[in-house]
């Protein structure tokens, strides 16, 4: 079929397909008929995979909905104790990285290797920044459990936290306001009967942080995978594998990166902004 129709719209340096596989680019796998088919297949495969990723987070969103429905007040209150400014910065970081990935795809399409490498590099940096900030946020929570005011103080043995607070789910969980006598006051309506604080553990406040840690943790795992993918892309782009006729890896990797961003765009308001 490929002999009669040009397979790619862009100017192909190689002449029409002659005999044998050497006529194709090195990257055309043997079981595909044309580069076009290979590209479409790879892209479709990634889209299907993204659907499963969405369903994976869908389970967590479902749990979120159920519990937010059951404990609306708890949710509103608990969200105050997340570091919203840092979350907002992270959102911006990721959105910009989405832009740079899109630009990388564009650069690959135009065959601009320098710009491609630059954009991938910036994406890597932004992704790493995100993880560092996220890591800081996590460590803040752990530092509070250890009684330190912030992670630095935790390491250096500096300032102590005024009131006891521990928002890491587990045996030591303490939610400041809900503790003690205020438990009865905090619960309104239907949530009332559930919202009684339990000795030692925290009451449904803990559920909020549990979901927070699981959702953002799972997201962070995806970030690590995404960073690995972008690193590999950078490597092969540097090796010169990517050409205007063959940039599927950049496009497919870019799709994955966008998905990670989109999930964060949902996570951020759901956890940080519900108060």
């Amino acid at each position, binding site marked *: 079929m490929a002999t009669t129709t040009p397979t790619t719209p862009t100017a192909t340096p190689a002449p029409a397909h002659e005999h044998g596989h050497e006529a194709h680019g090195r990257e055309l796998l*043997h*079981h595909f008929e044309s580069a076009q088919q290979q590209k479409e*297949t790879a892209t479709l495969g990634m889209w*299907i995979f993204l659907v*499963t990723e969405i*369903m*994976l987070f869908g389970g967590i969103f479902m749990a979120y909905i159920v*519990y937010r429905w059951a404990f609306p007040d708890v949710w509103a209150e608990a969200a105050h104790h997340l570091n919203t400014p840092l979350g907002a910065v992270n959102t911006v970081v990721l959105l910009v990285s989405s832009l740079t990935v899109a630009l990388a795809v564009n650069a690959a399409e135009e065959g601009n290797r320098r710009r491609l490498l630059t954009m991938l590099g910036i994406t890597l940096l932004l992704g790493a920044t995100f993880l560092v900030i996220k890591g800081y946020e996590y460590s803040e929570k752990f530092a509070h459990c250890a009684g330190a005011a912030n992670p630095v103080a935790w390491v250096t043995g500096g300032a102590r936290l005024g009131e006891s607070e521990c928002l890491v789910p587990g045996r030591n969980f303490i939610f400041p306001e809900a503790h003690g006598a205020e438990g009865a006051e905090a619960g309104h309506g239907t949530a009332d009967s559930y919202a009684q604080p339990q000795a030692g553990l925290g009451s449904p406040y803990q*559920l909020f942080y549990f979901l927070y840690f699981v959702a953002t943790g799972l997201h962070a795992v995806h970030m690590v995978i995404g960073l690995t993918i972008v690193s590999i892309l950078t490597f092969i782009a540097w090796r010169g594998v990517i050409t205007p006729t063959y940039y599927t890896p950049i496009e497919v990797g870019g799709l994955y990166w966008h998905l990670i961003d989109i999930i964060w765009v949902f996570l951020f308001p759901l956890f940080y902004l519900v108060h």
Partner: protein
Amino acid sequence: MATTALPQRGYLHDDTPNLGEWIRSWLFTVDHKRIAILYLLAINFFFLLGGLAATFVRIELITPQGDLMSSDVYNRMFTLHGVIMIFFFLIPAIPAVLGNFLMPLMLGARDLAFPRLNLLSWYLYMFGGVFALSAAVLGGVDTGWTFYTPFSSTYSNSNVILTITGAFIMGFSSIATAVNFIATTHKMRAPGLTWFRLPLFVWAMYATSLVIVLATPVVGIALLLVAIERIWGVGIFDPALGGDPVLFQHLFWFYSHPAVYIMILPAFGVISELISTFSRKRIFGYEFIAFSSMAIAILGFLVWGHHMFVSSQSVYSSLVFSFITMLIAIPSAIKVFNWTATLYKGSISYRTPMLYALGFMGLFVIGGLTGIFLGVVAIDIHVTDTYFVVAHFHYVMVGGTIMAYLGGIHFWWPKMTGRMYNEIWGGISALIIFVGFNMTFFPQFVLGYLGMPRRYHVYPEEFQILHVLSSAGATVLAVGFVIPIIYLMLSLKTGRIAGDNPWEATGLEWRTSSPPPTHNFEAIPVVTTEAYAYPPEAAARDAAEWRPGSPL
């Protein structure tokens, strides 16, 4: 057809100089046919293991007392059985073995879209299997295959996390396979192979893959939450801490009801191929069968609540779920009616695969109809968690999926190995399985209706006779499963050379040599006809030419 001479290089052809190379040529293969063989071996191994656990369960139930094992060991035994059979046998069986082998062949492609992903899926399967097995070796799990919370998340003292990890990893193996099948069906069809010329097996695999892709991640996350809950104990499923144990059931059945269609849809696909081939007739109502697969895939996502009629679900939801459960029986029935109509005036030959197909039809009808009983809220509340449910799902899973799996293995065995199996033994063991199966599971309907609860190893004396009958049937069934293993293995050495198309079937897979060359086709075939293009008078001609002992 053209020539029956073996090709120069079938995919099984071994040209490796030494053992190390040989092992590498299998363990690092990206050929979908070799991967199918790897799956075949692994999956059958798990089947035998699950069968072993079932054997112990059935032995224990021969007497009303708990004499062979304690209730705790019994719990671990049926859980082992359930986990292995469902996650490591039934879900992957037909897609990973027959699907992997056949999809590219039926589509006229050289391989699946992502061969390396395909190999990865096998490794994930094995890796998940290692987790599940190590959980069993280290003492087992006692939650049942359903891992209900809060027992699994808070109270159980068994290897829940290991098992869950195994099931979780295995889920990603299914997803990899499904992504591959969907992409392959969309993009790798041979010239002229339009959607409505696809074999129904491909339609079935396509529908199955959609279900896998949409449902599996949800159970993945549900299981992950159970595991984290066990570690952190924060109470997401613990009512004492504000959590909701029923949430787990929702997430679990949102996957696991569709999962029953992951198990049965591929079986439908196999049966469509068998019925048409061995009736020598165009399948009746092709479009209806194709679309009913899609309808099942969609409706299957809307009925999970029928597993929760007694789990504090509101009666109104139960009513809705009950109604949709009835609806989903319609597409299943459409298929059965279409197969029956295909048989009508067909030139039916009772070869082993066809025996399995006919057995399937009878047993699946019983299984499906009892499913409707269970879908009626009032009846379900009476028989839920009894042997009635156990009998129902064994009729669909063993009577349905396993019959189809075995039928498919026999049907495509000549294509996979290039050799015929022994037809006489094939027929005998198919009959033994049919008889043994009914003897094992029919009494369980009665038991359940009389009130025998599932998952108990001590029971009132009056149930003993039915239990003994069931255990006796299980012995017959076991014999029926062992015989094929023997004659299929023997056929590898002594079987008659099959030729390209021993059944005179129509699919593209029969147009290449047996076993097929590594790249499947000498030249990519061009398709110009519908899928089951048996000449209209084929059945009549066969009937006229029939004489005792005719092969077809």
